[in-house]
């Protein structure tokens, strides 16, 4: 699934330059603790979060995530947007809650992996 497909499923808007289709979304992870994402997210995951701090971009890069999905209609902070563009990290915003967004992606066949 491309990031464009993902955005379509969750009424999402892709933030920044159109680099969304370069990456294949292979799984999903939802968490607002960045240390937890650093520990447990997997390569190619779409990461569902409330966080919009610039550090999210570094974490997404570190874990080679396919996209950051910011829920509840929250918009990324300007420095997050800038850093995401610079490092070609796809950011999608959605008016949906984390629960609803994860549910829609799950329905479309995106799975998470058991952590423990």
């Amino acid at each position, binding site marked *: 699934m491309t990031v464009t497909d993902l955005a379509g499923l969750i009424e999402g808007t892709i933030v920044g330059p159109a680099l969304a289709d370069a990456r294949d979304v292979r799984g999903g992870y939802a968490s*607002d*603790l960045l240390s937890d994402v650093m520990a447990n997210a997997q390569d190619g995951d779409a990461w569902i979060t409330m966080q919009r*701090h*610039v*550090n999210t971009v*570094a974490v997404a890069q570190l874990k080679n995530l396919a996209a950051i999905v910011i829920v509840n209609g929250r918009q990324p902070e300007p*420095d997050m947007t800038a850093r995401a563009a610079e490092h070609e990290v796809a950011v999608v915003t959605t008016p949906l809650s984390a629960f609803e967004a994860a549910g829609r992606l799950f329905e479309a066949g995106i799975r998470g992996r058991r952590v423990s």
Partner: protein
Amino acid sequence: MHPAAVVQAAMAAGLDGVVICDHNAADNVAAAGRAARASGCVAMPGMEITTEEEVHLVALLPDEAAAGVLHARVAAALPGRNAPDTFGMQVIANEQAEVLGFNPSLLSAATSWSVDRAVGEIHRAGGLAVAAHIDRERFGMAGQLGFVPPGLPLDAVEVSAATAFDAGRRRYADPLRVPALTGSDAHSPSEIGRAVTFFHLDRAETAEVHRAIRAENGRTVLGGGRPMEDLAMHILDIAQNGVEAGATRVDIRVEEDADANELRIVVADNGRGMDADTRNRVIDPFFTTRQTRIVGLGLPLLRQAAEAAGGHLTVNSTPGSGTRVSAVFELGHLDRAPLGDLETTVLVLLASHPDVDLDWTHRRGDQEYSLSAADVRAALDGAPLASPEGLALVRNAVRLGEAGLAGPSRRATRSEDHR
């Protein structure tokens, strides 16, 4: 926990000062300040702010006016109002413990400020921004944001009482080149004093503490520890007792022998010493010659710590020629108290008693390093030991020495990093 109770608990713990940090509010700061002024302790204005990322930041504020300004700014950035039935009453009290009113905001909520914004707001109010309990997963910056955002102008980081101070300082503060502080994060009076920070100041007052954190005018942060727990704090306590008893020489040896599974701490001084009767009484928990204590709970608690870890405490003393305290522990015993930050022990001792001839040795396995106050004074060539240069020299010597010990029996100390 009304303002006067906080001040009383701080005095009982032997503290010179406390920072009053309500969550997202500062309306108890003034009463605490008045209660403290009446009793000779310092209650410094502060606030613990929750950012929108759910990171806690401590604002250390220069005065009550600044606290009032930040209080109003935070109130405007908080969503919703308190529901006292659910979250409890948010009491504003005076120093007589009379209730003046209730804070209507939902103080347990997060502000709409990002971390960066909150640091900016704290600075605009003239305060210092400290990443609170940075080692904690929830509400600590490292857990909540993964790491400290590069370029965030923090003034200090606070290591919680859950982490050994030296481990926290090395991991979180040193890379940012800011001082590490520690504190009790007390939510009830009994917790006050469970972790303390030592400063080198002219006198105990807010402005001096701020200077120390900014490393201005020769003021500096010496270190921190957990007085009830860390052996480093016990060592400091015993050595200070010796100096109070007129000692001009204090020899301290800390020996970790992994092969023999033994930790041995020896503190020997040439102070007044004690007769046999007094010697027997000092290891009795109901005896003290002092009214307040600054660190540690004295020999009874150290004895208990040694015995809990399969060891023992020996006190030899001769009136007129000094006292020798020796505590032995099973190094790898599950209940062995953590060593804590020995750098703090040496720095606080030399900063408070620069004329004492301290001889310090730390041995681990077959490696050891030593530091003698006489050598430091000689290297300083007349400059005072309790000066920024003198203390920096001591600090660097201890750090170098400790780094050199990170050898074979490292395994024995790793469990101290996080309990």
